[in-house]
């Protein structure tokens, strides 16, 4: 393998990987406040992309306005979702809640199919689509957008968790909801906020990747799966881990195409994921949880 080829695989992997990373972040957010896996996470991504497309091409709004509106609308969807389907069940078992998110995901996906049709659609790249050459490899400006936003988001999230009161409250309510409640934290609002944020992040990811990969009603399941895998690989409770996991997953996929065979890329990626879990049962950067008895 030539160096420029290797570099291209790497760039290709990082491009897909940062898409997975952005979605993985959404998983971490909800997991960090509820210990839940939200199977509808991918649908937020899909909704974000499709709403932005409609605002841009049907309503004729400029991107800079269409994008924030789309993110806000999806965040509202997240809030409604939490209020109607998650909140009534806050005393139920985790698996029950997960099945609810599965139901919501089926619902959102198929409503989107009726609203937007079956064909995927695209958005123009934010800053042109002329590829940038880099040591014999190329990268698109939109991929740089994705990478930059991922990095900025994860830094801001770290600051948010470590410095802000709300962020600390979020972590506290995940670790021990009754105790957090006693400390005067409104855990119910915290959960709602985390759903809103997670949905918003999902929508942002959707908007960012639509120019790269196009968005149709059915992309949610696939992207959600990759995001979930990335989050688990990195450690579900750690945003930095989620980003790392997503990017590593993307690079593994890309390199396995280069070295092995594209038909087996998903198998290779999941195989490595399993290996990592067998060695580190809580992901690369995940905390080892000890049960207190």
């Amino acid at each position, binding site marked *: 393998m030539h160096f420029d080829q290797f570099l291209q695989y790497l760039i290709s992997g990082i491009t897909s990987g940062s898409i997975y990373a952005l979605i993985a972040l959404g998983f971490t957010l909800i997991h960090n406040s509820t210990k839940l896996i939200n*199977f509808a996470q991918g649908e937020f991504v899909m909704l974000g992309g499709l709403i932005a497309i409609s605002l841009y091409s049907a309503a004729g709004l400029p991107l800079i306005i269409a994008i924030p509106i789309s993110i806000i609308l999806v965040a509202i969807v997240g809030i409604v979702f939490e209020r109607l389907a998650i909140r009534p069940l806050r005393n139920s078992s985790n698996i029950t809640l997960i*099945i*609810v998110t599965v139901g919501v995901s089926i*619902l959102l996906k198929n409503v989107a199919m009726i609203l937007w049709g079956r064909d995927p659609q695209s958005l123009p790249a934010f800053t042109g689509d002329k590829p940038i050459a880099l040591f014999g490899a190329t990268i698109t400006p939109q991929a740089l957008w994705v990478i930059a936003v991922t990095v900025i988001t994860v830094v801001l999230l770290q600051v948010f968790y470590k410095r802000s009161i709300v962020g600390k409250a979020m972590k506290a309510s995940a670790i021990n909801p009754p105790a957090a409640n006693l400390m005067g934290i409104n855990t119910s609002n915290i959960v709602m906020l985390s759903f809103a944020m997670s949905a918003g992040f999902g929508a942002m990811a959707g908007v960012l990747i639509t120019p790269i990969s196009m968005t149709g009603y059915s992309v949610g399941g696939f992207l959600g799966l990759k995001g979930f895998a990335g989050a688990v690989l990195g450690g579900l409770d750690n945003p930095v881990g989620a980003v790392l996991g997503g990017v590593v997953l993307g690079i593994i996929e890309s390199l396995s195409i280069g070295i092995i065979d594209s038909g087996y890329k998903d198998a290779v990626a999941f195989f490595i994921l399993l290996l990592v879990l067998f060695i580190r049962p809580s*992901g690369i950067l995940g905390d080892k949880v000890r049960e207190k008895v």
Partner: protein
Amino acid sequence: MVAVRALLKTRRTGLALYGTAMALLPLMFSNDYYVKVLIILGINILIVLGLNLLMGYAGQVSIGHAAFYGMGAYASAIVTTKYGMSPWFGLLASIILGGIVAYGIAIPTLRLKGHYLAMATLGFAEIVHVLFLQLKDITGGTDGISGISTLSIAGFLFDSPQKLYILVWIVVMAGLIISINLANSRVGRALRAVHGSEIAAASMGIDTAKYKIQIFVLSAVFACIGGSLYAHMAGFVSPDSFTLGVSITLVTMVVLGGMANVWGAIIGASTLTILEEYLKGYEDFNMVIFGLILVLVMVFMPQGLYGAGTRVIGLIKRRFKLIPDTAGEESAAS
């Protein structure tokens, strides 16, 4: 003691009732379609019974049982079409293959907890799915395998849905009896203990790893038998039938019916299978309605259909003072 005997007796009456009813059901339909739906229903019940033992009793989530379902189907398909062996060898092969693979994957995987375990089983199923697609010489790739022969006993061919139905329901009844026996036995309690508190279970002398692996293998074997029966009914298998979506549907059946209850598994599998079949006519709105019903049921009946039913019956009993208040408390609390 008396209570235990009484319980055993009702259990048997229940089984006999359900068994006879299900055996008589196809007599009501001369139509192949209904019988085929009943066969699929039977296969789903079998798999969900096994998955319920794993998830509901032992508390270990698997989002990868479509892999075993598929492995059972492919093993049968390959053994009968490629090697021309008797379908019974196909069934046997699928049980052996499923058992060995499940055992191998269970040892490292079941050390994981919660979502990590869920992801690992999911990843395993995705790998198996890729293998179905890519090992073209063995599996036929996307086109799948056709021309799978039908089962027969001593010259009696199970070549019509009505005949195959009998076999499927015998298998389902066996699965049901096994599940009921296991659920209320020493091993069943050990499994529930692992679910309730793994650390306490270990301190009570339960080899938690061993039981987790055993029940995983058992549930995988149930799924493999289901797959094998499916292959011989349909005569055709392809990777499209064993996707992540199928794994998730199976988990949904377990939770919807009510976990850790054998009858809950039956209710869950029956409701969802029939609902899916019923909604097919709605085409574009099919899955919208399906998703909506799923969300509504879970929001209003978080214990699943069985749990909600017990509660309603408890309320009715108390309303009409059929039983003293104290006993009512018990069912309301559970």
